């Protein structure tokens, strides 16, 4: 029963991914209903899983790396289902659902035991504020990168005049650029206040706001990267392909900061439980 909902979610997301990919290979007329319905079902069970973790831990379920990655995946799927209303391209689903499944598979390798008693540092409302802001920002960056990837492919197809099945299945360039245009300010805003909330949290528990911990350093680098992106878009009028490439590079940086740094460089966001301040791990 421990992670039952979570495991069902993985199965449903994998099923959805399979549904979408099969659809891409064989059918062409109708909508990929199987993939979509499994994704919706997966999202519902995923929500239950998060609720279950909340009841189990007695607090917001964001205190372990497992929960944070799971929440990240949940926000991505949620945003995808929202965007899908506007543009039901099956390609979007066939990128997002495998991504969600892979994230959950990764989460399942992470520690999910909540050590009792919970360290006071984690038993504060700063935890949900900081994590929700940071994760939501990252999820938006993930969707921007997905959109960017589709943009580059679609742009290439139109430029080289290969107007085939893939072209018809992909959304219009305009739609894909809209994801970037709307996502960038939102994501950047969330990233900014995510970093600020982290600093305030650190200040409230340890007395200093910034300690050049690896995660902090890389977050700052990421922040500068997205600040540059906003600048290019707003001031220089970069859009389309260039914006798409930046969205992909930016997301690579995000993933390194979000997942890579903790594993490779340690610090007080580390996954392992032996960092200086925190005892039990978090992201």
């Amino acid at each position: 029963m421990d992670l039952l909902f979570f495991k069902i979610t993985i199965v449903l997301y994998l099923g959805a991914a399979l549904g979408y990919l099969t659809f891409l290979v064989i059918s062409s007329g109708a909508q990929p209903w199987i993939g979509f319905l499994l994704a919706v079902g997966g999202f519902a069970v995923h929500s239950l899983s998060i609720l279950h973790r909340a009841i189990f831990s007695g607090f917001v379920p964001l205190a372990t790396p497992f929960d944070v990655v799971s929440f990240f995946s949940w926000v991505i799927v949620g945003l995808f289902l929202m965007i899908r209303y506007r543009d039901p391209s099956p390609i979007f689903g066939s990128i997002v659902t495998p991504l969600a499944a892979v994230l959950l598979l990764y989460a399942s390798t992470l520690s999910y035991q909540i050590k009792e008693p919970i360290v006071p540092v984690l038993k504060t409302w700063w935890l949900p504020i900081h994590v929700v802001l940071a994760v939501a920002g990252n999820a938006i960056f993930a969707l921007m990168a997905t959109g960017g990837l589709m943009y580059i492919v679609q742009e290439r197809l139109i430029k080289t005049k290969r107007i085939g099945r893939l072209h018809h299945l992909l959304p219009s360039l305009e739609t894909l650029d809209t994801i970037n245009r709307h996502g960038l300010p939102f994501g950047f805003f969330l990233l900014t206040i995510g970093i600020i909330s982290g600093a305030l949290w650190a200040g409230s528990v340890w007395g200093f706001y910034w300690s050049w911990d690896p995660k902090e350093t890389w977050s700052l680098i990421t922040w500068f990267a997205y600040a540059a992106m906003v600048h290019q878009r707003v001031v220089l009028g970069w859009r389309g392909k260039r914006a798409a490439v930046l969205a992909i590079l930016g997301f690579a940086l995000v993933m390194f900061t979000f997942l890579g740094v903790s594993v490779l460089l340690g610090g007080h966001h580390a996954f392992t439980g032996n960092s200086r301040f925190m005892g039990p791990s978090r992201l």
Partner: protein
Amino acid sequence: MSLHVMVIGLNHITAPVEIREQITFARDHDGSVTRSLLNLEGVEEAVVLSTCNRAEVIVMTVDLENAADRILRVVGEAHGLDVQPYREFFYVKGAADAVRHVFRVTASLDSMVLGEPQILGQVKDSYRHSTLLNASGPVLNRLMHRAFFTAKRVRNETGVGKAAISVAYVAVDLARKILGELTDKRVLLIGAGEMAELAARHLMSQVDRPVTIINRTYDTACALAVQLCGNAIPMDELDIGLAEADVVISSTGSREPIIQPEQMMVAMRRRRNRPIFIIDIAIPRDVDPEVNDIDGVYLYNIDDLQSVAQENLGERQQEALKAEKIVNEEVAKFMAWTRSLDAAPTIVALKDKLEEIRIREMARLNGKLSGLSPGEREAVEIITRSIINKIAHDPISFLRKSGISSKRNVYLDVAQKLFRLNGGLPAELSHHGSETEEE
């Protein structure tokens, strides 16, 4: 009764346009053709379908062999001509072939433009006309509803009607894939010739904003602008036009390209990299092909559009293969249904005969049973009825299921001989099954 669907008609494949012009069932507006079809011996139900590419009648008949001639005669009379010289243009299809034909026509698999969407509406109108005249009955009602269902399946499950196959539609589809919704986009026509106008018509129907026209002779541009409710600008303002437009259609008679890469690069800077879709339908070309290499510029010439259209047609044909499978499935289902109708008279006759025997025997034993109390008599009734039901149960369910078997006529024949049934049986059932079999 053995019921057969039958189709007689001509279409764009079997008849040239001069013939199709003559056979149109134009006089059926008042239902006269449909009514004279129903008056024919052996014709029970009728639907008359007429479009610019086909004219056909769909009937339910019990006399497949002789109905064709009679129907053709009516078709001739309806158009005031002798039909004999026209016979070669008509196709006559019966049973499963006819059903398949109706399904294929409705699903737009038999259309001149494969997958075009109008035909479904036209078939629906014809059917409505027929129902209003009370000319359709149980068989054609079911046939037509299954045809609409099949067309819906084909539309939803295949891409037969999806990809654009004319240059004008390809251009609009591409514009949408580049620019999204077109309603608020700006169209620029370069060259005021007929070509530009033709190419722009379909595009302009998607756009709300007035079109801008540029031409070497300003007056011609103005004339066309009046015609298209647009506005004209002189040739030396081309750069402004390029900076503002989202879709450009160029069709001048110029010998040299009129849009150069450098010029376009400047325009892109002015547009702040907003994407632009340029359609060059002029020969020789108006736009230097290198313009396509500029980020955000999508240049298609007439050959490009044509080859996309060609490819899309290939895609539709590919999808049509899937559609044919769906049609075959639905035809098989429909034929199974008509066959289950075939067994019905035999089953009724069998039940009647058994019941008749029971009643006769009960009457014969009336004297011996007279000593029984009403309750006991009731019990005897129930027992005898239950005995014949039990005996009849297996043969009847076998006959019902035999609808799907190819040996159905043999089974029905044997059943009739075994039980010595007669009455209510179509003559052709007990002997030959020549025309209806699918094998």
